[in-house]
């Protein structure tokens, strides 16, 4: 290759920066034909992973370690003065003598994998997972029971019975579709809008309610705001309010699972807003470099409280970031339970088999408000919300599928609605009646053992209540 002449360098740069169609983009993998199959957007260099840099010479502590023979893409390149190939440790790439910026493509971004159309009809029969009736009914009933519970608990907050609530309207498909594709022992790290995963794993209504009410049955001992569920038995790590903190944690858990040869995957849920946090970047990078069996599941529901995606990011969503980290990535229709299922199933199989992370961006829509502290009519139109509620809802799409299979009908629908409402109301009334935990539980579990100074503080509160107890709501708390 000749080095550019001075004249070439003096050419106006505009010539080099024309917008190119995807077909012409160097190295961009052709996805059109791959839509038939379960398509994972490969890294920009196809199946080939980016070779990591050469191991650095240890600082003055002896010879460099011999090359890693277990990692073929880490073998040191042989230096030769005859080679005009790049030798930089930082990238595996060819030279180019044309000045050209890569144009980010958000107009025709990563395509959205789906199995059903908006009316619940299978588009490509070979993509139908052919789940047995029982399983599809479980998917349907989990979503609808969650929906019913959401309505009742949202109301209960409005009535001042619980302090706070977050609904899952419109996103039920992302929860159950992914949960159904996992093993029951796969560890779940959530953000706060994944109650359907617990629902699918048969977390009892009584315990959902107990946590929201902070009553004596709450396994969390009344310490957190409502919807901060956790369940050890069902491998669902307790939710915390700070966003995205669970992402690097999930990666660590996956690393430990890999070391233990547990054949488990870890799944980590987060929203498109949380994906802006530094912890998300940290988690993605660690998962890729440390080769962890983890599924990153992003619920892109269009809003982070009032902030629309146009103010959250400027690139092609979250899926497009995956290849930047060397992560296998896909975008799916989050309102299509089967698409979510298929993608999660395949990601799980490969994550465990190959010890590498997978990123699934599930496109969906947050039909409800962010929480009971939010009134979303302040920042979006009722029409927009109605469209999703009426025209593209995971529950109705699956119901259409059930109907077309002859596995469901109007009568069963009516009976189930009545039954699920009754179950929820019963659990709700019970939860209301139970007392709150003993105030001593304010002090335990800070450490595994209670430090001496904290015990003194606990005793000090006990003494205080002896004198001033009338000013405290003791009658609602366990003695």
């Amino acid at each position: 290759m000749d080095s550019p002449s001075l004249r070439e360098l003096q050419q106006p740069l505009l010539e080099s920066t024309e917008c190119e169609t995807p077909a012409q983009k160097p190295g961009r993998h052709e996805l059109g034909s791959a839509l038939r199959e379960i398509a994972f957007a490969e890294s920009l260099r196809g199946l080939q992973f980016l070779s990591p840099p050469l191991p650095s010479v240890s600082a003055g502590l002896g010879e460099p370690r011999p090359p890693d023979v277990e990692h073929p893409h880490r073998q040191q390149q042989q230096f030769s003065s005859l080679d005009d190939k790049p030798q930089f440790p930082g990238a595996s790439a060819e030279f180019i003598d044309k000045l050209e910026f890569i144009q980010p493509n958000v107009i025709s971004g990563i395509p959205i994998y789906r199995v059903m159309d908006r009316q619940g009809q299978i588009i490509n029969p070979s993509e139908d997972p052919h789940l047995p009736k029982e399983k599809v009914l479980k998917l349907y009933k989990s979503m609808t029971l969650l929906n019913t519970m959401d309505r009742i608990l949202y109301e209960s907050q409005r009535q001042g019975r619980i302090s706070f609530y977050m609904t899952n309207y419109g996103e039920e498909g992302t929860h159950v579709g992914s949960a159904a594709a996992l093993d029951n022992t796969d560890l779940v790290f959530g953000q706060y809008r994944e109650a359907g995963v617990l629902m699918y794993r048969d977390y009892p209504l009584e315990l959902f309610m107990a946590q929201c009410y902070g009553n004596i049955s709450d396994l969390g001992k009344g310490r957190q705001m409502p919807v901060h569920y956790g369940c050890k038995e069902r491998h669902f790590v307790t939710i915390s309010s700070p966003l995205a903190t669970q992402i690097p944690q999930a990666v660590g858990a996956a690393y430990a699972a890999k070391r233990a040869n547990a054949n488990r995957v870890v799944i980590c849920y987060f929203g498109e807003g949380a994906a802006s946090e530094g912890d998300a970047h940290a988690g993605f990078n660690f998962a890729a470099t440390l080769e962890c069996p983890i599924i990153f599941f992003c619920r892109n529901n269009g809003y982070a409280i009032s902030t629309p995606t146009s103010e959250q990011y400027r690139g092609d969503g979250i899926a497009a970031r995956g290849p930047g980290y060397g992560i296998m990535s896909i975008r799916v229709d989050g309102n299509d339970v089967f698409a979510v299922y298929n993608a999660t199933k395949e990601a799980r199989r490969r994550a465990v088999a190959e010890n590498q992370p997978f990123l699934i961006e599930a496109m969906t829509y947050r039909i409800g408000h962010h929480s009971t502290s939010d009134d979303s009519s302040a920042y979006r139109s009722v029409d927009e919300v109605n469209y999703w509620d009426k025209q593209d809802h995971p529950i109705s799409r699956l119901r259409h599928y059930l109907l077309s299979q002859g596995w469901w009908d109007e009568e069963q629908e009516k009976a189930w609605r009545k039954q699920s409402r009754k179950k929820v109301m019963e659990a709700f009334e019970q939860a209301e009646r139970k007392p709150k935990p003993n105030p001593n539980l304010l002090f335990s579990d800070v450490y595994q053992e209670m430090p001496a100074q904290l015990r003194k503080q606990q005793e000090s509160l006990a003494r205080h209540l002896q004198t001033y107890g009338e000013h405290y709501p003791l009658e609602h708390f366990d003695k």
Partner: protein
Amino acid sequence: MAVVAAAAGWLLRLRAAGAEGHWRRFRGVGLARGFLHPSATVEDAAQRRQVAHFTFQPDPEPREYGQTQKMNLFQSVTSALDNSLAKDPTAVIFGEDVAFGGVFRCTVGLRDKYGKDRVFNTPLCEQGIVGFGIGIAVTGATAIAEIQFADYIFPAFDQIVNEAAKYRYRSGDLFNCGSLTIRSPWGCVGHGALYHSQSPEAFFAHCPGIKVVIPRSPFQAKGLLLSCIEDKNPCIFFEPKILYRAAAEQVPIEPYNIPLSQAEVIQEGSDVTLVAWGTQVHVIREVASMAKEKLGVSCEVIDLRTIIPWDVDTVCKSVIKTGRLLISHEAPLTGGFASEISSTVQEECFLNLEAPISRVCGYDTPFPHIFEPFYIPDKWKCYDALRKMINY
């Protein structure tokens, strides 16, 4: 005459060689011998620059833990880590540059011995390191994370304070990350300036749910680090970097534990209680000698060892006896951990106090570079404060 001249010449050459040797150590290779003909004043300045503000005082050889070996601080840390990985097959060590042995050599040899899945580098990201460590610990495996300098722990502050510290409490004990230990080099080193000298223990003292531990010596470090690793709560272990090489003593080869949340009275006395941790313990030890020699004052010297939860009883018991308390730390005065100790002691021992509690600390400035000798709470400042307390 000739003999004297010869002797003087010999002395001059010796001093020149000594100074040059010092210069070579601090300035690196490549300076020609002829370049360095230090005049007397430059030589003195050079030598003064190298004198540390403390003298490490080794403890007597421990007898009760079996065979010992002379180790410096970083070697005692390596030994603790070696013992941990040998005993606990789930234990892993990770952080920036730990694979080749670490920038302070604390992890030398461990990757070769235990494998690359157990001792490995992470990307350069403290929030990731701690978050990742929490996740490992949540599964029950032992996570030993290294933050390269305590000055860089702040990106991980959210993960430590909002997550690690609260994991057990917020889940009602369904989940915890007790098997997480974070190790980090800490404290002044002579030339570290703003970002290689900090002592951030006070930030973490305000956070229920974690333990913060700081050793004064290799023997203490190994026992305390092993206790942190085995403790069922997330722990931060700060290692005084100036002691990594400067402190060496006999340390048992086998594992042993030194209990957390127990201060140690390393010298008994009757007139004043001196409290410090880490490097500063050696400073106040020297101050105690000075007080004895110059003022006839008997000092009780306490190494706090665990910052939180701290051993209130031992400190108060001492102050009840002596009536006077001096606390010293490198970290800035305002909001430093001495304020917590001072406040608690005046609550518990008010009527026993003969003088106001004295705090000798760094100034309320970032840690300076060239002004370090003026910044640090050295023995002269401590001695002066003690003198004022005695004469109160």
